[in-house]
């Protein structure tokens, strides 16, 4: 019933609009304005452009200032401070260009609106002006490129040797994290070994993987460089940590990396933002399917001592899943048996596994 009512109202509205439209045409024919080349509307539009500039500009400025505080995710990394500064510097430069060109555009539109009897100024070109306004943007761009290139090279350069290393792996639709354990070496993984228990595909015949541990959230120490090793086991994902100004795709078949230095612990950030529930978040930022929008993990930045304590408490994957370790032992035992019979073939099939077990 209501739908019918709405449809009826809509239909009536359309009829009213249609009649108004006819009326407007008829009056314009009657008043003769339909045959005039440039009518009153020319002036109206010219004024509207100025109104748009003034009102629109004011509204934009107001809304920008009003939202400014909400716009900036609080920064918690060293390079984040640098890129943030560069971002707002560039914003100021393009802001100036924006205001200048928009003001000129609408002001000219108003000022040079049609006037009977006036003729436009025949001004086809002027080489000097053109050279100047080609060079100015070129110089500004050159400066911005140089600054950007320097920062980019620094950010993407090699990670410091003493970096804390951890591996983030994307899958539909959550993140998995792996730490290298005491030996500081991430063990070999193989996607063919993945199952419901062994989600990383640990190849535990590799000794350096025995002490690797997984975690439900990311812990990193404040003030230490952190090297993220990033991979995906199904489709593309992207590691996106807005507070650290970190983003890198997770690509199946091609491990990627990103390093950064966190500067504020979670507690410090809670104090700074006045939000006792604040948490650094890792989001997926490359479309990956149904659960893309909910692919989240928390990141805890600890004081270095707390981090060491946390690290020491973690149990390795192999310790928590002895049956997985046992299955690898069995396999390698079998391999050794086989190897004694047909050594060449076994070596060709799984040389790494065989070597590790020997």
């Amino acid at each position, binding site marked *: 019933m209501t739908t019918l009512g709405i449809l009826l109202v809509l239909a009536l509205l359309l009829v009213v609009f249609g009649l108004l439209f006819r009326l407007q045409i008829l009056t314009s024919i009657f008043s003769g304005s339909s045959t005039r080349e440039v009518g009153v509307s020319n002036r109206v539009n010219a004024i509207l452009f100025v109104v748009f500039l003034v009102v629109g500009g004011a509204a934009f400025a107001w809304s920008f200032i009003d939202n400014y505080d909400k716009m900036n995710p609080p920064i918690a990394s060293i390079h984040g401070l640098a890129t943030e500064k560069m971002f707002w510097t560039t914003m100021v430069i393009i802001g100036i260009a924006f205001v200048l060109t928009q003001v000129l555009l609408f002001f000219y539109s108003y000022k*040079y609106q049609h006037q009977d009897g006036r003729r436009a100024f*025949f001004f086809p070109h002027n080489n000097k002006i053109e050279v100047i306004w080609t060079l100015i943007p070129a110089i500004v761009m050159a400066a911005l490129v140089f600054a950007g290139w320097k920062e980019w090279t620094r950010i993407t350069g090699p990670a410091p040797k003493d970096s804390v290393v951890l591996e983030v792996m994307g899958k539909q639709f959550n993140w998995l994290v792996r730490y290298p354990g005491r030996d500081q070496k991430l063990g070999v993984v193989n996607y063919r070994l993945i199952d419901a228990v062994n989600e990383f595909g640990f190849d535990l015949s590799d000794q350096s993987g025995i002490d690797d541990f997984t975690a439900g959230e990311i812990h990193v120490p404040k003030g230490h460089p952190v090297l993220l090793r990033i991979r995906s086991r199904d489709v593309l994902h992207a590691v996106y940590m807005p507070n650290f100004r970190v983003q890198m795709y997770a690509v199946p078949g091609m491990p990627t990396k990103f390093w950064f230095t966190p500067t504020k612990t979670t507690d410090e950030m809670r104090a700074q933002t006045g939000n006792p529930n604040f948490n650094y978040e890792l989001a997926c930022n490359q479309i990956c399917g149904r659960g893309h929008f909910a692919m*989240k993990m928390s990141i805890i930045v600890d004081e270095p001592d707390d981090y060491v304590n946390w690290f020491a408490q973690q149990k390795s994957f192999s310790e928590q899943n002895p049956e997985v370790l046992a299955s690898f032992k069995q396999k390698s035992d079998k391999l050794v048996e086989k190897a004694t019979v047909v050594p060449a073939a076994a070596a060709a099939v799984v040389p790494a596994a065989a070597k590790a077990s020997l």
Partner: protein
Amino acid sequence: MAANFSSQEQVQGGIGVTEPGHAHDAHHDEHHEQSFLQKYVFSTDHKMIAKQFLITGIFWAIIGGTLSSLFRLQLGWPESTMEWLTPFLGKWIEAGKLNPEFYLALVTMHGTIMVFFVLTAGLSGTFSNFLIPLQIGARDMASGFMNMLSYWFFFLSSVVMFSSLFIETGPAAAGWTIYPPLSALPQAISGSGAGQTLWLVSMALFIVSQLLGGVNYITTVINLRTQGMSMSKLPLTIWSFFLTAVLGLLSFPVLFSAALLLIFDRSFGTSFFLSDIYIAGQALSNTGGSPILFQHLFWFLGHPEVYIVIMPAMGMVSEILATNARKPIFGYRAMIGSLLGISLLSFIVWAHHMFVTGMNPFLGSVFMFLTLIIAVPSAVKTFNWLATLWRGNIRFTTAMLFSIGFVSLFIAGGLTGIILGNAALDIQLHNTYFVVAHFHLVMGSSAFFGLWAGVYHWFPKMFGRMMDEKLGYVHFWLTFIGVYLVFLPMHYVGIAGFPRRYYAWTGFDTFSQFADLNKFISIAAIVAFFGQFVFIFNFFYSIFRGRRATENPWNSTTLEWTTPVEVGHGNWPGDIPAVHRWPYDYSKPGAAQDFIPQNVPYSQTQSSNLPYEREME
């Protein structure tokens, strides 16, 4: 058809040879009555083909806009029920909620439709077809038959894409960039099943259409210019259509190869883009492929594509600004030079879409450098448009309003490109709403504004009638204000790091602060979308009931305005006019009127000739 052209014109136009209906029509002789099918459906007349592209484009724009209204509903009111959409969306509403995979399908199809079907086919398909022969002084395209095929391949591709909206597993849902492995594996998302197959088939047909059209545009511009129409006398529209066609011809085949390899990966077990994948409880056997390779291939088209979209708009806006400011376009040669510069650079900046995909950072540096160079020709164009308005005598036709709007939006969207082209800043902003806001302004809205400007401006030549100006003003102001209300606040959301293609942000504390703003954007977007029906009404009403147009209603200088009000097949009833001057002799001192058409020889305008023109009298 060709039979009634004089022999001299056949030499000039050369279409007598290529007309498919030639032999068939020969016995009709003088009165070439065309059947309905020949005239309106399988037409080889460039003007009819242009109208076919335009109306199909309008159809697609309504679909694309509707899809965006649907996902804006979801983003504006993520918590509320969508039960009322069930009659329309059926099983994609689950327990009152939009299905998240269908949400992804909506954004994917919105992007695909708008970029390819509206702003490529609808824009340059319409105006390259309509204006190239008319403005260079040709009877028709070099090959009318290929031109017809170009439309019908597009139509076929449209049918395939449209039908994919209705299939059981849903349309393609891996984003309009269809990055594998997501787009390659139906296990990953249901849209990557039959929907993605139809998407790829449709795009393959679309590319065929583009290539048939492009070859034709290029050949026509090079070979069929009328007497006196040198390349340096071409209107800027033609320069932009010509370079657009060159870009399309060089880049679309690369997308074709990407699509082909993806089809192989999907259906024939190859591993071009797949490697080391464990999905749905199973390790796939594919190894050695690279998803990044696909991105390189995709963006090798994808980046020129944004210039394919924007350059025709730039050309038409240049033309309309000059005509309605009653002034020559400022820096005609610089305008051509910047078009050439943009065309060249557009091929070597593609990897700025891939700064954080794991590509070698050194490559990122190179592409950052090349990307920021492209700001220079773009800036030159903007300054030249402003200088064209300076000391003009401006008439605000609807087309002029949209052209000024174009410049405004192009500046607003273009400037943020300087930020996104900077790799160091792109780390944070990649795939956020900052990017969405940027490209919707600079290529989406701007190109739409160019399209509307073109429709309002050339409507009298297309249909022999005028569109209603008052409704045009309403349409312009609604849209102009609407676009800014939608996309300016979107930058704030982007700076705050909101990721694109998110069904909802409510799960993250980091992305919790802009619920109101998102509601606001949604309202503005939906209102602006409904505002478009003013245009649609005006367009179709005016085709049949609009005021009758005169031959040259805007007092313009280019050749198309020398044709009769009802332009027949062959364009000029008599000889094709010869061209004597550049297309921008507006308000020339000493001239009787404030415009001198291109076909007026210098001998007739002695009072206004410049010193170097005296020799040509």
